[in-house]
């Protein structure tokens, strides 16, 4: 079974479309949306319509912190630019969109894989995994050999061997990583809609469960249109500029 894993789409229609096209050409059996379908980006309605259609056709989706903020109201920890977008997003969405977001679970466990937006130890607290230390904390509570997450907007692979020590690895796009079963893996799928690792191209992961391989892909997309959409909506300039810089 081939799973396409999309994290942090963030209402970026152009990036989402490009990744769906790319994954469609590569071929996959199932899609997993790892949270933050909305926020930051300027086409939340279309993005949610698409996500809802995919989920009704069998895709898996978990809740992200921006998704939750749209449903429950903003959180104090969110920076002001992000909060502004949440308010704007709520105003342009239909009740059915909000209802869909409200129905998303914090975590899904299936066939030896855990899907969660931020981490496994407290999925609703939204703490980040940015080092082997936090990855170890998450792996310690995950019962599965593989954890897929997002939230950080940078692709990262953490692996843990028999010694318990966790190592970080920066994945190379297009090179499949054999994820052996003697080891436990935490895979941050990067971001479809707002990459922050210096590369503007959208990022997603393909997991082949039969061969146990993880492959990252970087998909160039129409960044200018996505940025223009943010500017035209009157959303913070920073959010448009960071799409162009990939930071």
């Amino acid at each position, binding site marked *: 079974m081939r799973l396409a894993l999309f994290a942090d789409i963030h209402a970026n229609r152009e990036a989402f479309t490009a990744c769906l096209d790319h994954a469609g050409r590569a071929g996959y059996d199932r899609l997993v949306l790892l949270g933050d379908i909305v926020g930051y980006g300027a086409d939340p309605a279309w993005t949610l319509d698409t996500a809802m259609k995919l989920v009704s056709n069998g895709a898996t989706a978990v809740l992200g912190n921006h998704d939750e903020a749209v449903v429950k109201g903003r959180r104090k920890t969110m920076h002001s630019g992000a909060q502004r977008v949440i308010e704007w997003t709520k105003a342009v969405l239909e009740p059915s969109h909000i209802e869909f977001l409200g129905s998303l679970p914090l975590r899904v466990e299936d066939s030896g894989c855990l899907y969660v937006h931020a981490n496994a130890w407290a999925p609703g607290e939204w703490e980040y995994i940015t080092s082997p230390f936090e990855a170890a904390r998450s792996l310690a509570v995950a019962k599965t050999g593989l954890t897929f997450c997002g939230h950080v907007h940078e692709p990262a*692979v953490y*692996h843990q*061997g*028999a*010694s318990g*020590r966790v*190592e970080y*690895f920066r994945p*190379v796009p297009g*090179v499949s*990583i*054999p994820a*052996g*079963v*003697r*080891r436990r893996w935490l895979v941050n799928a990067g971001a479809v809609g707002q990459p922050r690792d210096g590369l503007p191209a959208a990022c997603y992961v393909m997991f082949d469960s039969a061969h*146990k391989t993880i492959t990252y892909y970087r998909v160039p997309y129409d960044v200018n249109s996505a940025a223009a959409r943010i500017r035209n909506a009157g959303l913070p300039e920073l959010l448009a500029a960071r799409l162009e810089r990939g930071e």
Partner: protein
Amino acid sequence: MPLGALSAGSEIDGFRLEEKIHQGGMAALWRVTRDDISFPMVMKVPRLKYGDDPAAIVGFEVEQMVLPKLSGIHVPRFVASGDFTSHPYIVMEYIAGNSLRSRLSDAPLEPDEVARLGALIATALHDLHRQQVIHLDLKPSNVMFRPTGEAVLIDFGLAHHDQLPDLLAEEFRLPMGTAPYISPEQVMHIRGDHRSDIFALGVVLYYLTTGERPFGNPTGVHGLRRRLYRDPPPPRAVRENCPRWLQEIILKCLEIEVSNRYGSAAQAAFDLQHPSQVLLTGRAERGKRDGFLKVAGRWLASIGQEPVQSGSVAHNLGSVPIVMVAVDLAPGHEELAELLAQSVRRVLDSDKGARLTCVTVRKTPLVGLDINVDETGANLHVRMLAELMHWARPLKIAPDRVTYHVLEAHDPAIALVEYASSNHVDHIVIGARGSSTLRRFLGSVSSQVVAEAPCTVTVVRVPRHTHGSG
């Protein structure tokens, strides 16, 4: 089936175990067959009993990761692997023939034979490095030779793949490798430099040349750390008949500082294939080990030395290409020769570690005619070599970065392509003659080279001037 119960005749995933051919400390090797596969295969089954060395287990994981990524004639072909939940194993092509280890008892070998074997191993190493993999345990028992002659590298349990997670990176306290062959930087836990394999190649060459190990077989961390500052006795001090060019090559491989070694295994292979072209430096003349002060200086520097990781293999290899320029010495092409030189200068300027090999072809009337017996031919050869050096002189390339070759061939394009191929050339620069009366005679050499070259080709052309001559 428990692992201990493997026996001849049993089957794992369709592979039939025929015969146990080796039981090592870390793994057993079985000759296996499967109905749908015709070539001979071997199954490697690790020892995974409780209390076994964790390095054996991780090493097996590493090999399972790396071997399927490799291809080509210089590695055993990967067939299948079983994961650790059922039967851990790797099935790969069985390499018939002997390992280099079987030659050790013959050492010291004749210098020409050392160079021949060394070039085969260096060629295999370069192929591995081009696939982003560093072996990190090169030693005679890990080098096999196919019946057709090519060297095959086996056992990737300590290997590093530049684009995959390194499962061995921080797992263990001790430097990983085999004590007599391990490089200074491996002692420092650096696993990402392909020149570590070139150091091990130097140890192999040294052993084959002298019959002795350059660093003995130290045990313990203290003995290994000596490698950070102690140079070996020069091969000629151990064995007088070691030629200077071979000592030069061996000691260049064995430089303590990685940047003083060959930048690529291809460059080492080049020197081993062209002894007469090896530039002799102080290394060739060295009669004894470095003196107390020099060693003490290195020793002081090694105290508390922190590992410094260099760039990726791909980046490092990319900065040390072998560039070949095919020069046409026929009169009437001075402008083209000048443009060719400009083009070469640009390539060399962008890659400071590049080596240039200047090649020209002396066309012979008949294939197979030994022209060296012909006095006219020999004189012409010498003259063309001089002209080639004269052409390259304005480029002002350091002597250790340039070589000159006059090929003798009936078909210049075939000769150039074969030369590029056997010398691991990364980039060919060649001129295209415009319309000329000679072209009818020679054909378009450059277009044939472009079509058949194993690497990048730059074609240099004199700009065409539009005029009405039709």
